[in-house]
């Protein structure tokens, strides 16, 4: 099977049903994308497939064959994305486990809505965070929107 991950081609052998999450983590060795629930509910596994955010734990790799995958490691190699800079300014992460997915989801939101309202943030940001960093996530999204101006 073949994929492109963060711009690099990947050729590998795997079960067609193997979720993209585990191909990314095991076959590609990229552990930034996390496993939280396996049923697409928590968002810790969020990657981009051809630029669109997807929950990779419920995406069989056969469904994305030949496509271009972006993981958290590929979002901004210098950790310079507006979302990442805002996350650092606000010290958003606590344990940090959900934050790869959270950052990917927030970056995608900002792409679609450069000046997101709180209602848009509420609707879109369904990633779960057990540490409940949500207040800072919201504040950091607004900050990132300002950076991008």
């Amino acid at each position, binding site marked *: 099977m073949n994929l492109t991950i963060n711009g690099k081609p*990947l*050729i*590998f*052998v*795997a*079960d067609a049903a*193997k979720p993209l999450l*585990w191909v990314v*983590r*095991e*076959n*590609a*060795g990229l*552990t*930034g*994308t*996390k*496993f*939280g*629930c*396996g*049923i697409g*509910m*928590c968002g810790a596994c969020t990657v981009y497939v051809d630029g669109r955010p997807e929950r990779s734990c419920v995406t069989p790799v056969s469904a994305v064959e030949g496509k271009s995958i972006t*993981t*958290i*490691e590929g*979002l*901004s190699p210098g*950790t310079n994305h507006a*979302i990442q800079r805002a*996350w*650092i300014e606000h*010290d*958003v*992460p*606590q*344990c*940090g*486990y*959900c*934050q*790869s997915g959270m950052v990917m989801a927030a970056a995608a939101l900002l792409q679609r809505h450069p000046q997101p309202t709180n209602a848009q*943030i*509420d*609707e879109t*940001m*369904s*990633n*779960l*965070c*057990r*540490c*409940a*960093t*949500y*207040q*800072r*996530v*919201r504040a950091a999204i607004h900050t990132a929107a300002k950076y991008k101006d």
Partner: protein
Amino acid sequence: MTQNRRAFMKSGLILGAGLFVPLAPSVAGVVAAVSEQELNDWVWIASTGDITLGLSQCEAGQGVYTGLPQVLADELDADWTQIKVRFVTNRDAYRTSAAHEPLQQFVGASMSMTLFYERLRVAGAQAREVLLKAGATRMGVRPSQCTTRDSRVLHAATGRSVGYGEIASDAARMPLSSSPRLKAPSVFRLIGRDLHRLDTLAKVNGSAQFGIDVQVPGMLYGAVRMVPGQSGAIRGIRNEAEVKALPGVVALVLTSQWPKPTINTVVVVADSYWTAQQAANKLELDVEPGVAADLHSTRILQQRKQALDNDAAAVVASHLGDAAAVFGKPCARIVSTDYHTSYLTHATMEPVCATADFRQSEVEVWGSIQGQDMVREWVSRLFQMPQAKVIVNTTFLGGSFGRKYVPDYVLHAVAASKAVGCPVKVIRSREDDTRHGYYCPAMSGRLRAVLGADGMPEALHARVVGQSLYGAIKVDKVKEAGGWDETMVEALYDLVYQVPNLTVDAIDVKQPIPVSFMRSVGSTSSVFFLESFISLLAREVGMDDYQYRRKLLAANPAALRVLDHVADVGGWRTAPAQGVYRGMAFNVYTGRGEAFQTLVAMMVELQVAKDGSPKVLRVVCGVDCGRAVNPGLIRANIEGGIGFALTNTLKSAITFADGVVQQSNFHDYPLLSLAEMPSIEVLILDSDRPPQGCGEVSLAPTAPAVASALFRATGQRQHSMPFEF
């Protein structure tokens, strides 16, 4: 090629790229680089000037990765922008004890800062003193003419300075003072400042390594399949041969779930987690159900309700005056209410997971580990290995809240590795993590008061019944106390409110359910009971949450200070907007064995939707946790604690039927979402007291404050958690 290596190759490795990311040196225990000088148990300085600070407390989100090095770096006068943090283990310097128990390295009970503040100050000051002397010697001047700052020794008179790196080896040879002079707080450069967290960068770019991310050469993967219920043994695997023959499957390893010796777990070892989990799901187990086969939440609650009436079985935890006599007076104005909470699970975002390599004469483990010595003790006991031969590597923890102190998942990895002869990383699925947890036990409480003519309680009787945590895992503590478990009666047995006659008693209603510590432990229940009841009494006599508590705390200026500040900033005395309702609660959190005292007051504002469900809009939380080492970290813990508590309060519970946990994943154990998160204002009150714990303190007051606001809104009292509406 060995069987294992062949199986591993089949997993489909990418061609050409480096697959194995070696563990960063920062998580490999105390591994000193070649040119590093060790000044003491906490400080390593390389000739290049790189300073590495030891961290003994695992980082699980509470912020110790930043807060503790901050203390050390201040006394050391290290350049904060240049320091690195290394997780350290396996020395007595890193061990401590909660409530007079044997020394161990662990995190728990919000005690890291309280326990390590002085220790790290001494370590930093010790190292600074020898560096200063070495620097002075190097410059040919007297130490009294020198100062230290930003990793340099300075001689003001000549403007010369020398970096710590240049003199580290001289300093390392000098004897350390056991009582070095500590800085006066007025000259702290780092302590007290809102320094940015050191681990944020790694946590926003995917590079931070958690237990689940560990990769070691030759590693296989394991998934777990356990008996379905809370008890039982595996008698056989009906399709063992078929599952073993599945492509990629290497072995089926039978083992047990700590602390029970019963064989109740299969670890499926395979060449990828996915393969292992699919195979584990296919297993057909023959299970002998065991004593918990008919465990049912309805019956568990029934047993607690019966216990509430069981005067004969109640063990008195504390008493003041003669509450019974006051209750016995004719015409006593008695108010009495029963409350109930539910079993809860930690639901860490990172499911439990560990990697182990069982070698001939030693075992090495890597993972999200909250109790390093717990792991050593139990690996040693169960695998006949001297503790000194158990190497423990700790990564970042993807949440713990107490869960990862239990060594079960590490022992599974060790068993798997021993069976297959190579390293194995065992990952628990969310379903298994939920169904086979170590739960926070449910409680029931009966609060009764006799109200005096002034409306204040003349007598209070509080009874808490339920599955005792200490009764299950720290039986000696129960004996020591005289037959009761302090966690069940937190904030009751050491009541902060002035009540002249008080009896607090408790009954252990045993259940065959694994239980353990969960963030805020028994206070989740006992403070829900107490604070709900106090608010109830207030309303009985026509006072509000704030006024009534003010009177009860009249003799406690420290408590009043926090309560008043929250009322002031919260705007308690001015009416809220139309449709917005308020509640207030107060708590003194004391950790375990009264290790510290943190005072918390909380005001909640909410609206109620047409369907009766609450939307919590705003929380104002005041906290006196002694000296604030890093206010940002405290605020994060308070904010996060409220969010954590709202899941317990409004959304989720663990229930049992036919011996099996009914929940399995986030669709039936939902967590608070971003849209449901209130806006939180944290007020940190100044204090000269040494730092007190703050990791758990905002949880307990949340439920009763919300309940009180809800009552104002709807006239309905909340007797059970999670709330019903």
